[in-house]
């Protein structure tokens, strides 16, 4: 909340450039500027590098993984890392390395798609609430308050149980629970921006409301949304891991990292800690990478904030 309130005025100055006609000549240096500042942030670059690597791993998973996700090597149960099985094997002899590699697909797909849904829903609702104000605003905000009153994990776990436990339902759940914060952020930006002169000018020109909302105001409200969206992907992957851990995520044999951690608990902890460490490290590094990139984006988009 405070973040957006501080950010919005910062954007207004930048928004004072010609707004209607897309001035590409002015836009390019700005973007280059952001990239220059971003490059200087070592952690953010490290995070970006990891995300790119992970995406490549996910895309080329069949080429990288030496075994299939259901392939069992008989007689090799809970074996530690070796040359044949880099990350060891799990309780029924499956190769942990291959499953972690394929798990990247699951996590990234869920992370990106769920965040996309959250952003779209949040944008529409938040923009509507912030732009129209009044009764529409209080209705939408009351609605989000109600959902925020249900602790997130309980809401997610309940819905997951009802709509079934699959990758698609997890995407839907995380998307449909993630829009709450997006709505708040977008609304806060819109509340500040809708009173500005260029909006008044656009209204006077007779543009339709959707056009003003999405073509005129939205580009100026985009910064906090981009930053939040980046961090949200990490948060969604974390939530997906948590939901998989409690057993409502994608079901076997789909290799969700959270479910792999859950399998490593109990008796396996003593005999096969590698079953815990590798998927756990995958989750942590991925989440951390998105957090670093998000932080880096925030600092480079708005250097005044720091």
């Amino acid at each position, binding site marked *: *909340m*405070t973040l957006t309130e501080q950010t919005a005025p910062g954007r207004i100055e930048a928004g004072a450039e010609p707004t209607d006609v897309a001035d590409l000549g002015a836009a390019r240096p700005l973007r280059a500027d952001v990239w220059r500042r971003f490059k200087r942030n070592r952690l953010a670059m490290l995070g970006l590098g990891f995300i790119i690597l992970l995406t490549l791993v996910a895309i080329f998973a069949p080429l990288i993984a030496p075994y299939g996700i259901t392939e069992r090597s008989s007689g090799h149960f809970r074996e530690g890392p070796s040359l044949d099985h880099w990350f060891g094997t799990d309780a029924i002899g499956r190769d942990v390395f291959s499953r972690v590699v394929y798990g990247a697909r699951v996590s990234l797909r869920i992370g990106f798609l769920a965040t996309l849904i959250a952003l779209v829903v949040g944008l529409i609702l938040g923009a509507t609430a912030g732009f129209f104000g009044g009764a529409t605003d209080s209705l939408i905000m009351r609605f989000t*308050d*109600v*959902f*925020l*009153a*249900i*602790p*997130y*994990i*309980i*809401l997610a*776990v*309940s*819905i997951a*149980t*009802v*709509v079934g436990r699959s990758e698609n339902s997890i995407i839907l759940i995380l998307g449909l629970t993630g829009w709450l914060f997006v709505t708040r952020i977008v609304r806060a930006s819109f509340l500040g921006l809708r009173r500005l002169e260029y909006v008044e000018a656009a209204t006077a020109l007779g543009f339709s409301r959707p056009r003003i909302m999405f073509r005129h105001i939205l580009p100026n409200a985009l910064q906090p949304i981009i930053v939040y969206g980046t961090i949200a992907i*990490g948060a969604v992957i*974390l939530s997906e*891991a*948590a939901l998989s*851990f*409690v*057993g*409502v995520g994608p079901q076997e044999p789909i290799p969700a990292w*959270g479910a792999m*951690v*859950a399998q*490593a*608990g109990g008796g396996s*902890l*003593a005999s096969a*800690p590698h079953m*815990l460490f590798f998927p*756990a490290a995958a*989750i*942590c590094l991925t*989440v*951390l990478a998105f*957090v*670093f990139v998000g932080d880096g984006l925030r600092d480079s988009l708005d250097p005044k904030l720091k």
Partner: protein
Amino acid sequence: MTSYIIRRLLQIIPTVFVALSFLFFIFFALPGDPAQLIAGGAERSVEPGVLERINERYGLGDPILVQFKDYWQRTIQWDLGESFLNRRSVNEILGERAVASIRLAIWALIIEVLVGLSVGLLSAIRRYSWSDRFTTIVTAVASAIPVFVLGFVLQWLFAVKPNQWDWPEWARLRTSGIGPDSWTLFFIPTGEQWRYLILPAITLASVTTALLARMTRGSMLEVLRSDYMRTARAKGLRERDVVIRHGLRNAMLPVVTLIGLDFGTAIGAAVLTETTFSWPGLGSQIVTSVNDRDLPVLLGLTLAVVLAYAFVNLIVDISYAWFDPRIRLGKGEQA
């Protein structure tokens, strides 16, 4: 002030009502017949007579609106019904489970406040020292480690390994369960209890401690720059008084907001911690009930959690006035 509190209390009612009704309908309106579940799960085939008897006993055959009305009539009298699974009273389960959760939460809170505040404070005072950098990295990493991963790693490190490495008996902690369940003064563990308590308490505290430390640091840095800190020093106050009484109290305002907002995160962390350590609290019961589709237990416990959540937020709002006397509650709308 009083009228503000009353108004806020009244606002809780519709929120809780809509939230619980939503959960109620989710479980009834969407596919999956509860009677079938009570009879043993969606895939199993049951004799038709069984389903009818179940429907009759739990009133599941009634139209959904009638059931909805019945549900709220009972809930208002704080009769939460009985478990589909073993017919135990939900009130009883709630009482039992809540106590275990609260005990764990108290210790987690103690750790959070002690560690989070002091680490944040020290980082802010010694800005850019190596300990500050270290703290910044640790808090960032800590908030990216899933609670359940931390729980398992701690179990492995302090409960599994000590047995394999033959550590002295006093250094061996326990992986899971509540243990002998012996307490004095409600929350102080006695006997062997502490071996079971330490790891889940640390695990539960981890996420919020990291957030608290980071927030305290940021907020303190802001305050340390302000004019009244210079004034306080100029009039010759001891550095400790300057930092604690003038600095920390003013830095607390955004921090308190965060603690309130993070109560939701804390509930999520509690669910995962209790599941990881098989701690018999509300969180682990909620997960079990969701998996069993034990609707009365789920709704009853959720009601308790949602109410607690609402009250914590109320207390947070009220505490603003204490931390910052300039804030007058109830005058004008708060964002």
